């Protein structure tokens, strides 16, 4: 895995997707070049000391000029929830933000005939654009189960459709796709496929959703990989704040640092709180 670097990255674009969500394009080419799907960056939202700590974000897109192989930027998908993310929501083109990465363990890819089913809740869409790009090049069949509170919380649908990803949408208020949680369509789809069809489930979203996806995968005899989210202090293994309870090779459950051992874990290994 690439050694992380800290880039004083220019904000190349800030696209507001809704009243709470935005996509920031950051000129962090050296991180974009080496980042693998599922890895994250730590972004400093202030040049001062308030807020003090960086915020973790999945690498959303790796961005290339149409005619060039090597990327010039990466983007992050942000949801405004606090002081730090509010600053990112309001970031101006030309601002500079310190961006540290790539960090963490990436998703383990699959190849045909194994299908990749991605399950995203809300801002949990973030790691699936890069995963789509990396799996698509191998010809893997891709499907995205994507849920939000309302139709205004679902983004980038065209982006995924253009790349041949089959979409199963759901909203809690029923304004788009199935009414209810994202796990409803997933459960039905799993039941509709023969047990002989090999699948890998990839999930990112709220912890109850990850727990439910891991349980559904397990019940159908399929493996899963879940991308966890924790309050994270450093992203480098220094602070021990981002721990997740995971069953190790010794069969015992241990609190492990999601910045180093994760954020992606085998769904069967996580001991849900």
């Amino acid at each position: 895995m690439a050694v992380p670097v800290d880039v004083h990255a220019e904000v190349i674009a800030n696209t507001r997707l809704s009243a709470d969500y935005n996509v920031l394009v950051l000129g962090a080419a050296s991180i974009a070049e080496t980042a693998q799907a599922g890895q994250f960056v730590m972004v400093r939202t202030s040049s001062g000391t308030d807020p003090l700590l960086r915020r973790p974000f999945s690498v959303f897109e790796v961005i290339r000029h149409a005619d060039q192989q090597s990327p010039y930027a990466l983007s992050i998908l942000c949801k405004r929830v606090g002081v730090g993310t509010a600053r990112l929501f309001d970031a101006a083109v030309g601002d500079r933000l310190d961006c540290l990465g790539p960090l963490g363990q990436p998703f383990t890819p699959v190849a045909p005939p194994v299908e990749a089913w991605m399950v995203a809740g809300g801002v949990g869409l973030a790691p699936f654009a890069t995963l789509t790009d990396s799996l698509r090049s191998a010809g893997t069949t891709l499907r995205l189960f994507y849920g939000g509170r309302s139709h205004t919380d679902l983004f980038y649908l065209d982006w995924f459709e253009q790349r041949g990803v089959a979409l199963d949408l759901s909203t809690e208020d029923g304004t788009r796709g199935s009414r209810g949680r994202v796990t409803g369509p997933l459960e039905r789809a799993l039941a509709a496929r023969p047990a002989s069809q090999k699948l890998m489930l990839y999930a990112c979203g709220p912890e109850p959703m990850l727990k439910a996806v891991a349980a559904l995968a397990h019940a159908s005899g399929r493996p899963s990989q879940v991308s966890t989210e924790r309050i994270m202090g450093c992203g480098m293994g220094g602070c021990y704040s981002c721990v997740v309870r995971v069953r190790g090779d010794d069969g015992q459950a241990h609190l492990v640092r999601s910045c180093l051992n994760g954020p992606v874990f085998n769904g069967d290994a996580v001991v849900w709180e």
Partner: protein
Amino acid sequence: MKADLSVRIGSLVLKNPIIPASGCFGYGLEYADTVDLASLGAIAVKGLFLAEREGHPPPRIVETPSGMLNAIGLQGIGVHRFIAEKMPELRRLGAVVIVNICGSSIDEYVELAHILSDVEGVAALELNISCPNIKEGGIQFGCDLGSTRAVVGAVRAATRLPIIPKLTPNVTSVSSFAKAAEDAGADAVSLVNTFLAMVIDIETRRPKLSNVMGGLSGPAIRPIAVRMVYDCARAVRIPIVGMGGIMSARDAIEFIIAGATAVQVGTACFVDPFIWPKLIAGLEDYLERHAIARVADLVGTLQTGRA
């Protein structure tokens, strides 16, 4: 000519006074790709008990204005795994290792000191008698003068390694604890550990940390920490390792002027893991600008008379 950055802590000579703080730098190897560990004065590794410890459940940190609270609960791999799994690589990388030791009894501190005295590459012991986040040890020795003397004295008798008790600011007079540590045979004292603090979520009326309370660190505490280092420097003759919210070379220099021979940096490394060469270069620049040949000549040079 470049200034001489070397400093002396007891029998230990450090090439410069910059030390990553215990609890903020893992066991050092986490950062081996981002900093040359041998370029640092020393590294203070995460606090170790004899046995492995799980620590507190998350959430373990919460951000505050210009600071953060932590209640990690001293999660750790225990001294035996540390020696077997971490020390060989730390030795290979040329790190000067200060091992932070924690005990729930004086006997545990003594046993840790015995074990670590025979380990090649261990340069000094920092005695954690100040962690605010665990009930059964640590701070109980750091909030009572008699207990501080007893644990420092017992470890002194058990090892020839330099010993550096790490003091808590959560007492009325830190300098009296520094004096007690000196009297009991400490080679230096390090201060401050974090300030016991809490943050409440007013919507849920619940504490933001699973442990309810945690230790406040970061630039928010720096002026108090500088004052405490200054107080201690006037009370003892042994060197002081100063810390508390150092974010830049300027901040480190402030501690040195107040009386610190060396400094530890913790929270700042969370924000910038590449801070170390910047701190060292900033210190060199300052000394050159002020025509000071040795950083040791800057220690405790606060001018309090009329300018």
